[in-house]
């Protein structure tokens, strides 16, 4: 039965993923001038669009401003749409009850309650998340998002990092692979568009070139399936994701090597500085009153990476 569910899950996951995999990801570690130029152009276009939609947004903005002024006001301050990747456990995913959940989602819900927003979720196409943010389809990207310099250069307002992520190499326990050196000539899987993939293309290029083959999958589940099925020998993946998977599946281990790290933050539109600081303020309050830790306790694997709890 479990197998059946796993297959069903794999199938649905990949279906929605394919729908999501689109284009121009913001996951650009590569700070070549070209990439920045593209981003700037996009921002320009987006701001033009924003002008068009001014009348609509003006309403929301004014509400936000009053909200910021009121600070602890509890009356309705309008809608706050959280942009998430619904396939990124444990930060944002579809829970057992079919509703969106995850650490980021729970925190964002609590923040909205605090600030009097109507909480809503928008599933972004991860590759186009910043364009969708600009287009006003959501008010932030808050979904285990890695902060890149190019985002800031392109004018997006990025919150203080709230999570520090480590990339790890996951292998089978009995594989005899104990360090990245043992990976020479081996097959390694990585998820397309993730920071792991970017690292292997850039900072870890030499390591990547020692692999027998680098297999790019479109979801973590497929990476893990390739590993389980013996098609690859290792998966390069975000540590929390790997730990999460290993909690439910036996026979895997992580290579104890620091292969790179990244920070997660929340992205807002360029003109939403106040919104960003009001949310950062709310997070500080939650840390102070212990409600942040209460949520974090449900995600023990994340705790030691959460910047707010380790200040």
């Amino acid at each position, binding site marked *: 039965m479990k197998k059946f569910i796993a297959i069903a899950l794999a199938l649905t996951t990949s279906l929605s993923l394919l729908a999501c995999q689109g284009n121009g990801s913001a996951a*650009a570690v590569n700070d070549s001038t070209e*990439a920045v130029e593209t981003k700037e152009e996009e921002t320009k276009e987006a701001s033009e669009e924003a002008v068009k939609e001014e009348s609509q947004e003006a309403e929301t903005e004014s509400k936000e401003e009053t909200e910021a002024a009121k600070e602890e006001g509890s009356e309705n301050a309008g809608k706050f749409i959280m942009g998430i990747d619904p396939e990124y456990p444990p930060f944002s995913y579809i829970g057992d009850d079919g509703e969106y959940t995850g650490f980021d989602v729970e925190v964002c819900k609590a923040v909205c309650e605090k600030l009097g927003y109507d909480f809503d979720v928008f599933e972004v196409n991860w590759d186009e998340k910043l364009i969708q943010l600009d287009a006003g389809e959501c008010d932030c990207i808050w979904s285990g998002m890695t902060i890149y310099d190019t985002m800031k250069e392109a004018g997006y307002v990025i919150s203080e990092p709230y999570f520090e992520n480590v990339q790890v190499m996951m292998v089978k326990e009995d594989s005899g692979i104990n360090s990245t050196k043992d990976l020479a000539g081996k097959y390694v899987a990585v998820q397309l568009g993730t920071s792991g993939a970017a690292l292997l293309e850039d900072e870890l290029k030499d390591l990547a070139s020692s692999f027998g083959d680098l297999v790019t*999958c479109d979801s973590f589940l497929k990476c893990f399936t390739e590993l389980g099925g*013996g098609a*690859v020998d290792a998966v390069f993946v975000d540590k929390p994701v790997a730990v999460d998977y290993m909690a439910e599946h036996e026979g895997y281990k992580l290579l104890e090597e620091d292969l790179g790290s990244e920070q997660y933050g929340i992205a807002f539109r360029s003109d939403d500085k106040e919104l960003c600081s009001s949310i950062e303020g709310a997070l500080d309050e939650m840390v102070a009153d212990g409600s942040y830790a209460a949520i974090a306790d449900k995600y023990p694997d994340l705790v030691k990476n959460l910047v707010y709890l380790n200040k």
Partner: protein
Amino acid sequence: MSLLTMIIKMSEGLSRTCAIFFLTLIFSLPLGMVVTLLRRSKNKIISSITRAVISVIRGTPLMLQLLAITYGPYYLVGLTVSRNKLVPVVVAFSINYAAYFAEIYRGGIDSISKGQYEAADVLGYTKTQTFLRIILPQVIKRVLPSITNEVVTLVKDTSLAFTVSYQEMFTIGKEIANSQTSFTPFLVAGVFYFVFNALVDFVMGKIEKKLNYYH
């Protein structure tokens, strides 16, 4: 990354795209005919099983079948997942396209008048001779436009191999797009597909014209 580098990188994947395309055609075109014959079998059990299988294959997305063929054996019976993804990709594509071709062939065979069979029978042709020499050539001519449609779709469908991480042209394009934050690879992919299909159209048009000597 310059446009040229992009094109060169994506061209490397083009050979894999072509491999999927040609291998799928080589296997699915005859397989479709076998399926049609099973579907038309006088044995009720064989024909209804075939019908059910066709209906499942046509009623589910190709992407799902790709996943099922690639990972299904691992989840169900613990078989090793194939390292060379071309194998499961071609198997899944061939089965899927055979189902479509089978229905096209069936329509073509049904459209041939009973008189052709009777004339051949009276002239002494065996069943096999009748099928191969009299019926099949006429069926091919009749179904060719529908086949062309499917072949054009197949060119575009090769991009689905991405689902199981087979590094064909579109997958590489996606990877470049992701790492370069650029839309250009998709434009390049579009041009590739368009040119590929223009060639397909040209070749199929030639064949159609060649068969156009009678009505």
